[in-house]
């Protein structure tokens, strides 16, 4: 059976959920072979095996942390040459997309970015993409070379499918370009203890209507009652009320949770681009004409300062 190369996104050996989803998709196309790089690479093996990786290629070197992107492209290319896969799948993070695209050009393949689903087809993998702020759904394929496809988070279920997951050390020689861009300092993002925005099943967001950094506590309290992640509109981020890493939308994170609750957000096209594919959408907005109401399954026309705390209290009471 053909092998499918899966690029692993992990933090010090802890595999992030989008990679486990990729393994589900990879199994539709062939036998997943995973590539894990950097500190803790070998520690990923158990989780990857549990989710279907037949082999886990690993390599660690200081270059992965010290220089931007290219060392990882060199390693992915080495894995590509070692495996001769039928397809290469990479998580659609900003970095993942850059790595995938550079590999594609190196090996003479087309690249598809931000797939939201993947099926085996007669002429190779068929990718679903969403276009124009998720108002269109397209299907596309790579017509030249080995399909290189990046896949968005929440595109497939995480399924247990135990496989061998044999760990193998990959030999990598870095290109001349590998050390071109030096990382001179790194500040890890402080953990809030809340779920990761792109992986969360529920996202509670606040916009300009929240009217101040101090008021985001109301949004956070609702999020905590539901075990949700906190998102923000660009207006709230630009005003300095919430960090940019929590922005939802075209230039922020794109989320696709089971439930999205928009509070004091009008629903501009660029915001919709990042949340329109959420399964259930709820909004609280005092303006009955706000475009967000065109999207909702349930909407409350009202002042968020009344509605949100009442909802939070009710959720907490019902939880007992």
């Amino acid at each position, binding site marked *: 059976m053909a092998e499918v190369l899966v690029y692993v996104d992990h933090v010090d050996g802890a595999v992030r959920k989008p990679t486990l989803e990729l393994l589900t998709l990879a199994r539709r196309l062939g036998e997943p072979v995973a590539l894990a790089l950097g500190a803790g690479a070998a520690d990923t093996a158990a989780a990857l095996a549990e989710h279907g990786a037949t082999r886990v290629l690993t390599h660690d070197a200081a270059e992965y942390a010290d220089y931007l992107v290219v060392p990882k492209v060199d390693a992915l290319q080495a894995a590509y040459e070692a495996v001769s896969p039928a397809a290469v799948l990479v998580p659609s993070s900003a970095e993942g997309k850059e790595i995938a695209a550079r590999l594609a050009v190196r090996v003479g*393949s087309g690249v598809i970015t931000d797939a939201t689903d993947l099926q085996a087809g007669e002429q190779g993998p068929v990718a679903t993409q969403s276009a124009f702020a998720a108002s269109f759904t397209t299907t596309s394929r790579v017509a030249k070379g080995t399909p290189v496809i990046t896949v968005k988070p929440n595109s497939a279920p995480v399924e247990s499918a135990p496989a061998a997951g044999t760990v193998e050390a990959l030999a990598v020689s870095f290109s001349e370009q590998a050390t071109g861009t030096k990382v001179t300092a790194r500040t890890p993002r402080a953990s809030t203890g809340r779920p990761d925005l792109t992986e969360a099943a529920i996202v509670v967001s606040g916009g300009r209507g929240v009217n101040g950094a101090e008021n985001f506590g109301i949004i956070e309290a609702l999020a905590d009652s539901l075990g949700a992640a906190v998102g923000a509109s660009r207006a709230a981020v630009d005003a300095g009320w919430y960090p940019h890493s929590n922005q939802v939308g075209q230039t922020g994170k794109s989320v696709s949770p089971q439930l999205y609750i928009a509070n004091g957000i009008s629903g501009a096209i660029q915001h919709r681009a990042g949340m329109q594919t959420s399964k259930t959408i709820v909004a609280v907005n005092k303006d009955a004409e706000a475009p967000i109401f065109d*999207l909702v399954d349930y909407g409350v026309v009202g002042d968020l300062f009344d509605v949100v705390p009442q909802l939070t209290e009710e959720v907490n009471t019902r939880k007992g």
Partner: protein
Amino acid sequence: MSLRIVVTVKYVPDATGDRHFAEDLTVDRDDVDGLLSELDEYAVEQALQIADEADDAEITVLTVGPEDAKDALRKALSMGADKAVHVEDDDLHGTDIVGTSLVLAKAIEKAGFDLVVCGMASTDGTAGVVPALLAERLGVPQVTLLSEVSVEDGVVKGRRDGDTASEQVEASLPAVVSVTDQSGEARYPSFKGIMAAKKKPVESWDLSDLGLEADEVGLAGAWTVVDAAAERPARSAGTIVKDEGEGGKQLAEFLAGQKFI
């Protein structure tokens, strides 16, 4: 020594318009107004600021696109760029990411550069990978997705905010940079800028000027194929209630009914 900056700018359909696909499944450009991709305004802005700090700098704005794409170049020129290059050829219709990066890279080489500045992503294709591909093709460092950027003594430095960390990065010129919409608001063209732009040179190049063949680009040369495009069904109208004191409780009831609580 003069700092040669090339800014890549894309001409895209207005995101607030009714965007859709044409029969051949490429972007329909006839029904919706086009404009300079808003995210590329940030690239022009950062290029202008870098040029201001340099002893001597020249900014060329470059687009690959149809006739109307000149509008995007004019806008960038009216913001303050010095000259423009328009790569225009009927055979470019339907070019994919790999092809676009090939054409841009050839044009950048022909123009001559020390620094390439790109937007973080276009507002139509939104792949966000063209800058990295330009670095790959030009064989120079990529310093991409910067929310802060500066150039000093032949070194470009910036801040890249990733999913798990914020990084300070640097590379020697020549290099390819892309900037995010966190890098600083773009200036509005002044009346003087708009008038001056009319006199600035816009060169037109076609595929033969770049030594490219028709079958390397366009729909025919694309390495990816779109087989189908369907409009997402409109969401069925949801329930909307007015808060009369019980709005939060009603919402809780809905969420409980959906098993979220």
